[in-house]
């Protein structure tokens, strides 16, 4: 990499913009990003009170709507609109990250092992998305989040920052990524 921090930051911003725009390049990608975003939101919200979610879903799986609605309200009452907005943002970014990671994996399969370096950041981004969900779930229930700094919003901001960082690092999965972000 050449250039100072300003150039690196400009590159990262451009790469992030490209990464965020990638799901818009085909209907299938857009659909996959939407499905993953929705699924991530459902998982995040249900994992805020796992015992309740498991009981509701095992009694009647069609009650998933009730569980998601009730727990969305619970997340809002515990952490406010900011907390809810962060969860929703996290879900949308996870949708983009997973779609981009899938594209990177497909490209790596078509090409050679050498591109695995380019695939890694994308996989990390996707991994980060699922890890975030796991961390929230491991905390047990929304009550526990209330004990964290800013009702757990700090943790959510951290998750989003990490996701944005990896998305920007991976850039547009259609282009080659060498030496940690430069274009080939």
């Amino acid at each position, binding site marked *: 990499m050449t250039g100072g921090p300003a150039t690196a930051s400009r590159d990262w911003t451009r790469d992030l913009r490209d990464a965020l*725009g990638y*799901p*818009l*390049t*085909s*209907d299938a990608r*857009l659909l996959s*990003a*939407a499905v993953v*975003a*929705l699924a991530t*939101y459902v998982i995040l919200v249900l994992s805020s*009170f796992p*015992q*309740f*979610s498991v*009981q*509701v879903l095992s*009694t*009647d799986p069609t*009650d998933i709507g*009730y569980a*998601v*609605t*009730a727990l*969305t*309200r*619970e*997340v*809002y*009452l*515990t*952490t*406010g*609109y900011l907390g*809810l*907005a962060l*969860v*929703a943002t996290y879900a*949308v970014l996870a949708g983009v990250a997973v779609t981009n990671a899938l594209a990177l994996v497909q490209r790596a399969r078509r090409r050679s092992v050498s591109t695995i370096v380019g695939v890694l950041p994308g996989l990390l981004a996707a991994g980060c998305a699922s890890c975030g969900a796991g961390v929230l779930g491991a905390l*047990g*229930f*929304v*009550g526990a989040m*209330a004990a964290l700094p800013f*009702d757990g919003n700090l943790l959510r901001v951290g998750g989003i920052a990490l996701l944005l960082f990896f998305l920007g690092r991976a850039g547009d999965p*259609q282009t080659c990524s060498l030496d940690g972000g430069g274009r080939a």
Partner: protein
Amino acid sequence: MDEEGNITRRRALIAGGSVLAFGSGVAYMGSRSGASGQHYVPDTTHAGSGTTGFDVDLDGRPIAGERDAPIDIYYWTDYLCPFCKQFETETLPELGREHLDTGDARLAVLPYPNIGEYSTPAAVWGRCVWSQVADSDPDAFWNWHAAAFAEQPESGTDWADDEMFAAVTEQTAGVGLSAVETCREERGATIRERIEPNVAMAQESRIQGTPGFVLYNRDSGAAGKLVGAHPYENFADAIDQVRRA
């Protein structure tokens, strides 16, 4: 043109619209209140006595329903817990009308302070209010109980303090603030100590959050567990299962 590999206006619009719809949907679900505006006051309320077959100490605890009801519902709650408020406003009225007032089951209110710093003091307030009105006017306890939950604001746990609970107590007909304050001073420590064994029972039953419920068949000894603000139908099913077990 809707070319593969290009960012088209149509897809950008669909994505923008979807994100907007998703955000609005989440905001709507978050702000939607299912509360009926009415709170439940049982037809009969009694003070519990002794320890049950499930090892829950009911001595002097507020219990909604008939003393000889065949099913016990142990309800662990916290006045600072929004999910408990949801149970109180959306499920308890129907559960009360269909199962407590009919003599099918009785519901014991047990504190499980777990949400904020004021959870335990709030539980002590509740216990002191109940001690004052248990014999004379048990309905006043339920009015106070509902009023305390109604004070929960839209977000956070900062609302709960001595001043707020004193105001709720003062505004509830049939409850004297000075008697409750005296109880808090004189019996506060004992009440706190007596909360612990029942919380330990909840934890032993693997109830990790509030509201938490154990349904116990007093004849057969069968028990079931519900955690969270389940819809009324799930309670009705659980009561039916425990009754038949």
